[in-house]
């Protein structure tokens, strides 16, 4: 299956791109996607734990199952206001 991954703010700087499509094995969960990113990008690997994540614009935990076509984002610490 394929998900659309979005990068914002400092995570976009780290990834070097604002978004990408990623192919994932069936049954993948949000935590699996973060693990895959961490294997590729040392600065993501340096995070002590998975940052807050959103699937289809809702906060979810690492166990959230992913489905084909999902929009996924890992979120840097928010700083609105």
């Amino acid at each position: 299956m394929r998900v659309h991954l979005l990068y914002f703010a400092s995570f976009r700087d780290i990834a070097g791109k604002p978004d990408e499509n990623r192919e994932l094995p069936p049954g993948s969960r949000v935590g699996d996607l973060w693990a895959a990113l961490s294997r590729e990008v040392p600065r993501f690997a340096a995070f002590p734990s998975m940052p807050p994540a959103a699937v289809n614009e809702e906060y979810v935990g690492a166990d959230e199952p992913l489905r084909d076509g999902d929009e996924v984002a890992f979120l840097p610490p928010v700083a609105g206001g």
Partner: protein
Amino acid sequence: MYLTTQPIDVAKMLHEARPCDGALCLFLGVVRNENAGRETISIDYEAYGSMAEKEMERIAGQIAAEWPSARLVMAHRVGRLAVGEVSVAVAAVAPHRAEAFAACRASIDRIKTTVPIWKKEHHPDGSSGWVDPTRESGDLTIG
């Protein structure tokens, strides 16, 4: 629509918020000229726009459930803001001041905690950095 790229019209917000309801509490966040000891000249506010709208709507629903007598008007600016510009505005109106203050305070606290908005500070020396409120210094310089 809670996000706007245009300057927040506070007078208009007050007009929308204020009927004959007794007490109004307004909070404005204003771009400061310094943060964590470093001078700031401007801030870029970036949002995960569609999700930020949903989060602010969710917060508005929470506040309405917790303070049924309060009405809420909120706006958050995105894009580049100069020092002194209003980044966020929350107005809560209620029959009595306790609810107006509480609903306004809870709203801005939750906005700052969960709405996916980020800010990059620009300094006079040309450097810039994303603000990380979870770090003590409050300033994470990237690149």
